[in-house]
């Protein structure tokens, strides 16, 4: 029950992009088309869940017993980078269809702040490995929802007459602001 609450919280109420500002780069970058946005969301869900699990395991069974907690930042980022490479190689060899779907997004994920951010938040909030993995999954789903919504809005926005100064980057930011306000509504779920 607590896990479900946590998941709803991470997914909707404290949405990773719209209220915690993690993963903004790709949120703005690959939200032009709904197809690519969805692919990115899927790839991130995959990597983020896996990396929360691996980082959690390594932190609890390697860093803590040896009192090396202070190396967590450097260890986590290297794990994430290595993990992404590994997943890419693995999928290329054994999961052709999945690789075709996610392959192009994997290299973009390594330094998506959301991945490292979740790993660090799990430590900061003292989550167990299971809780941390659920949190990672829910966060990624929140990202997926947000980026797909934004991409659909942007596809429609092409037909709008946007003032010249606001074309491109500014109007996307303002769209994101309105989405962020809309997501405030989920606070009532609490």
């Amino acid at each position, binding site marked *: 029950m607590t896990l479900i609450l946590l998941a709803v919280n991470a997914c909707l109420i404290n949405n990773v992009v719209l209220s915690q500002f*993690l993963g903004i780069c790709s949120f703005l970058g690959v939200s032009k088309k709904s197809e690519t946005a969805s692919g990115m969301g899927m790839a991130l869900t995959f990597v983020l869940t896996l990396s929360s699990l691996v980082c959690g395991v390594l932190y609890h069974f390697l860093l803590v017993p040896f009192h090396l907690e*202070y190396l967590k930042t450097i260890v986590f980022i290297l794990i994430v980078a290595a993990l992404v490479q590994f997943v890419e190689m693995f999928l290329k060899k054994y999961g052709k269809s999945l690789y075709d779907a996610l392959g192009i997004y994997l290299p*973009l994920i390594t330094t998506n702040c959301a991945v490292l951010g979740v790993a660090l938040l799990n430590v900061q909030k003292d989550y167990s490995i299971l809780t941390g993995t659920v949190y990672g999954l829910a966060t990624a789903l929140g990202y997926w929802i947000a980026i797909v919504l934004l991409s659909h809005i942007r596809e429609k926005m092409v037909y709008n007459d946007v003032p010249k100064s606001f074309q*491109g980057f500014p109007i996307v930011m303002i769209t994101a602001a309105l989405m*962020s306000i809309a997501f405030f509504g989920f606070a009532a779920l609490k």
Partner: protein
Amino acid sequence: MKKLKKDTPIERIWNGIFVENPVFVLVLGMCPTLATTTSAMNGIGMGLSTTVVLALSNLLISLLRKIIPERMRMPAYIVVIASFVTMVDFLMEGFTPDLYKVLGIYIPLIVVNCIIMGRAEAYAGKKPVVASFFDGLGMGLGFTLALFLLGSVREIVGAGTWLGMQITPSGYVPVNIFVLAPGAFLVCGFLVAIMNKLKIGAGRRPKSEWDPTEKICGDCYSCMKFDVCDKKPEGTETTAQTIARAKGTVAEAVAPAAAKSAAAAKSGEKEAES
């Protein structure tokens, strides 16, 4: 404006603050920019911590540029940057605990700030030590300035204070939403729009061609392994390519030798990419 000599300390700092301001011109490092600017003071704190990491990692990477093997650049840079970030993290926890608490998780997240990796790859990995150091310093100060500006607007409108001092008349009811999440997006969008209008910063670029949100091929990481990455979405054009096509200024400014060497041109792409 008179042309400054390339790669001198002053030129680098000027470049970082104005010509290639990382936030308003290159649109890099948006996560901390939006997340930590709830007040002007937080903006300065985040900006300065990033500046320290940026200047020092640029310095060290430039020192090690002959030793680090070509193929091992990425992991080596990551290790160097993560080390400096962790040091800053400790120092802040020990000596500025209040600021540390406010900035929280965004301090370790400096590691994945695209600006730092971008500069390491595009500049420090190729240029002399002194110039690299000042490049990092300039970029960092430019970043600090942008964060300060954003933080000031949000704090004044959203809380009625500036740097903690009450500056609005007592009858003014602060518009809370500006210090909340939507305010960050809103203010940032409007600031860039104003710059577009005034034709400074991002607006100096050929506008019809320039839209970072559609031209960057994804995430910060793409900039790092851009030249070896064959997984880019089809038909993706980088900002730098677009600008180069439109004979813009940024690619030249980033890679002075762009015309001479294809490698240097690549670095320009990676730079603007990130």
